[in-house]
């Protein structure tokens, strides 16, 4: 069984997610990556 740990920190806010559910972690990572790159694209275009 694999272990997955996912931490996000933005300014003073920090979130840590640990799980052995790969599908759930992968979904969270993908969601965050998509949101993040969208934000970067908007910044980059402005």
């Amino acid at each position, binding site marked *: 069984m694999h272990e997955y740990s996912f931490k996000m920190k933005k300014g003073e806010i920090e979130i840590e997610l640990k799980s052995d559910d790969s599908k759930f972690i*992968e979904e969270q990572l993908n969601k965050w990556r998509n949101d993040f790159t969208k934000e970067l694209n908007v910044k980059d275009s402005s």
Partner: protein
Amino acid sequence: MLYTFTFKQNNIEMEFTTTDKDMIDREFERWLISLYNVQSPCKHELLQDIVENKSEFSEFINEVNPVFNEVNETEQIQESEITVITDENQQTENEKIEQDSEQLPLPLVLNIMPDINEQEQYDEARKEVFAHGAKKMPSGAVTDFLEVLQERIKSTKAGAIQEKSDGNHKINSFLIDKNPQTQIDYLICAAYYLFEREKFDRFSLKQINYEVSKLGQKSVDHSVIQQAVSKKYIKVVPDFTGMADFTEYTITEEGEEYFISEL
């Protein structure tokens, strides 16, 4: 073995740690591809020039090339870092997590977006690359980029080249029970694959054609895209800034239904 993948963007940090090598491989590539999509063109060209001179990396970069070619035209510079850490220890996973700050090797830092915000600096860096070939890279972030790739290849027994050869068959395996006949069918197959397997919630025509080419098909052109849009299988992602250099699409529920039920 424990793998850690860290991303930093100004005041935002993300760290992903796992014992699952396949997962870290997939996520690392997805982050690279996503980040290349938001880089300025000069950095893309510089990185591409350098990497193309390193044959062992070129196979890996070919995977990223479709996105390389669709770089943002803006010159906005962001400071980013990606860190890849591999732990060779055989301790239990919990012990590793507790002690990782002491036992992990020093992280290799990848500044995906090096601080080259002037054409002159960029030209200088290019000159240095061509003068010294792949043996000597410009100092700083770009060198680290290659180191990270090299480390990545070393840290995974399969390596990037093996991944490339396997990767060519990923979409074929995904579509093993499907029978696409028309160009729209192939378009939907590629779109569904990118969405469902590669987890891209949006994609460009070049990304579609990269996958379609793996299926041995000729490129999908804009007329096919238009047909798919008119049939509501895919839709255009609105460009609210009006500054996007290429159109992005996303697969619709109708498109997913078509893939699942009709193909």
